[in-house]
């Protein structure tokens, strides 16, 4: 194994950095040489390699967590390839004719324009449609505002002082098993820096970073909002992403300095597996933000994809008067499993947090809400409001709620509300008696159930998220 890696590394050095990238894919396996190879491919400085190695050594000592309410076969981490160069144009589908028709049918239902479909499905198009100009004007506008938005691999080289200061400051290398793995082998991801007092002139979306669409299974994102700045970041897209990788372990770190605001919205629609529960992505993600004085961090997520989801976007409310929010819709159908929720850690005085989590289970799927609200002794006057609602469709699915509350300050006010309901036959009948077909009726009822969360999403995203639920629920009634 290590010999193979070594030979690859040698070949890499001999050939020079750029040209080698085109053709190289590491054979399966993970050891220190793998980490060195990835770092070398990215032309990283020594400190970055050291950081990765530290993470790798920690990971070797760690064991995979088993507490989540999900079941899947044991993952053999030595059977995974940890570096796959971006697909060359000749390996990609030449046109949409070569793409899975079922995937295309879904794109059509979602109303995704043709050229976007090509990008999503990974079709080899040389200059990606006319969005090249869109991207250029977009970059110029951001540049004028002083906003940095680039691949994290580029940031490591171009803005080392920012990356060194903040990378791992929110999610340390040893934070958990998957975060450690990600820290060791992360492939790429986004880097965002908003300067002091700047309101980012547009919503940042990964969609505009077309060159990074194929970031692979270990994505790393770092967003820094300097004092008094604002940013809204959209992750993912509403169409199912074509991806061959089974395991995804991403890390997202948010740093909101004094008086800053970060709004992070996700629509996750990775391949969920087929109707029999075969295949699909394992999505094990660590997302966390630190809010300094008077800062606000808001997570909004719509999770409808992946076979197994394990994800808890969290807020560390470190500064006084800081605010954390979590709005979530998690929908599971067929054999999907989701264990998702949030952690709100109250440290500063008068910190406030709001959690609104909506779980929808259909088919034979299982979804769980798992949340922690911790009020530290220092957090005088802290407040939390939690609402988690579950909606069941049919009688073979499950919904579970695991709320944890740790309060160490007697001035705290903590509220928790939870409901479980079913899409009732009476509701369905009312809709049908008014002329709606059953599928339209269910999607309308489910959208109504999610309304409080959807209204937190940026406008176009909310519309697409509604359509996405409709598509994800197909075949769940009748």
């Amino acid at each position, binding site marked *: 194994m290590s010999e193979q890696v070594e030979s690859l590394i040698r070949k890499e050095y001999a050939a020079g950095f750029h040209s080698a990238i085109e053709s190289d894919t590491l054979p399966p396996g993970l050891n220190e040489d793998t980490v060195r190879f990835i770092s070398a491919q990215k032309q990283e400085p020594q400190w970055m390699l050291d950081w990765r190695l530290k993470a790798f050594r920690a990971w070797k000592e760690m064991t995979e967590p088993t507490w989540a309410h999900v079941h899947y076969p044991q993952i053999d981490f030595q059977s995974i390839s940890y570096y796959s160069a971006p697909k060359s144009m000749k390996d990609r589908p030449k046109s949409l004719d070569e793409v899975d028709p079922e995937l295309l049918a879904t794109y059509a239902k979602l109303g995704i324009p043709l050229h976007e479909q090509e990008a999503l499905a990974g079709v080899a198009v040389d200059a990606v449609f006319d969005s090249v100009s869109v991207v250029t004007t977009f970059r110029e506008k951001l540049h004028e505002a002083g906003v940095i938005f680039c691949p994290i691999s580029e940031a490591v080289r171009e803005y080392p002082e920012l990356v060194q200061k903040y990378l791992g400051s929110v999610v340390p290398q040893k934070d958990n098993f998957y975060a450690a793995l990600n820290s060791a082998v992360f492939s790429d991801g986004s880097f965002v820096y908003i300067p002091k007092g700047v309101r980012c002139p547009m919503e940042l979306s990964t969609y505009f970073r077309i060159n990074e669409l194929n970031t692979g299974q270990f994505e790393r994102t770092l967003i820094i909002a300097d004092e008094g700045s604002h940013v809204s970041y959209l992750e993912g897209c509403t169409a199912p992403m074509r991806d061959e990788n089974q395991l995804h372990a991403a890390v997202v770190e948010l740093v909101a300095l004094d008086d800053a605001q970060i709004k992070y919205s996700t629509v996750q629609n990775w391949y969920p597996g087929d109707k029999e529960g075969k295949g699909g992505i394992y999505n094990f993600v660590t997302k966390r933000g630190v809010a300094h004085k008077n800062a606000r961090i808001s997570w909004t997520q719509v999770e409808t994809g992946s076979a197994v989801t394990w994800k808890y976007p969290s807020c560390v409310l470190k500064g006084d008067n800081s605010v954390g929010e979590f709005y979530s819709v998690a929908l599971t159908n067929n054999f999907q499993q989701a264990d998702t929720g949030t952690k709100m850690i109250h440290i500063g005085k008068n910190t406030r947090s709001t959690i609104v989590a909506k779980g929808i289970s259909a088919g034979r799927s299982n979804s769980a809400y798992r949340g922690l609200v911790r009020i530290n002794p220092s957090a005088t006057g802290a407040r939390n409001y939690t609402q988690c609602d579950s909606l069941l469709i049919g009688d073979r699915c499950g919904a579970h709620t695991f709320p944890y509350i740790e309060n160490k300050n007697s001035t705290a006010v903590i509220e928790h509300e939870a409901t479980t309901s079913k899409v*009732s*036959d*009476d*509701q369905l*009948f*009312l*809709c*049908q*008696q*008014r*002329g*709606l*077909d*059953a599928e*339209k009726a269910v999607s*309308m*009822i489910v*959208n*109504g*159930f*999610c*309304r*409080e969360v959807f209204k937190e999403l940026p406008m176009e995203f909310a519309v697409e998220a509604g359509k996405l639920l409709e598509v994800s629920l197909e075949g769940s009634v009748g």
Partner: protein
Amino acid sequence: MLEIRELFAKVEGKQILNGLSLNIGPGEVHAIMGPNGSGKSTLGNVLTGREGYEVLSGDVKFKGKDLFELDVEERAREGLFLAFQYPVEIPGVSNMEFLKASVDARRKHLGLPELSSFDFMKLARETTQKVNLDPAFLKRGVNEGFSGGEKKRNEILQMMLLEPSLCILDETDSGLDIDALQVVAAGVNAMRSADRSFIVVTHYQRLLDYIVPDYVHVLAGGKIVRTGDKELAKELEARGYGWLEQEGV
């Protein structure tokens, strides 16, 4: 409009309708009265195709079509409307959205273009005033947190917007105070026309003071045991149902 011949049906293993026959012509209003458990609500549920209501035999023609060949939503789009006795809540789905989707489905079936959001909103606002509901109700979730009377008026609102051919009012008067009852009745009366028929299911003669029926039927034991005009309703109010059973009809 509607021809029911020898209809037998069961619910939860129990036979409720036992050979019911009824003819309803266009523009007619038929009241159906009868003791508890006689099958009044079952009739509405069987006609609209609610799950769990099983037709054993008999046939029903609605505007010349075999009703049982149609799905629940197809019957609705054809113009069969049921005003529910207990309207259910759909939290988070705005009344406006729900009404527009319903009206669009019906219009599409009739080959008419969808109404623009603007036109629909105008129409919906005007109609809420006819049933004495604040237009603010359009923005609230379907029946969400509505009082009993508001729910019933919301049913009439839906009926007015959908302009059905045959309306079945299932004990719409139950739980209504006299003011709300008058609003509901006025709504129904305003809808009466030569090509629209009504089946008014009720326990009490009171409603029929406001919605004057062409025919009154007494349903007992799953079939119609007597048919008369509005005077029959008054007689029932005075004498109850016992005398009919004693006459052995």
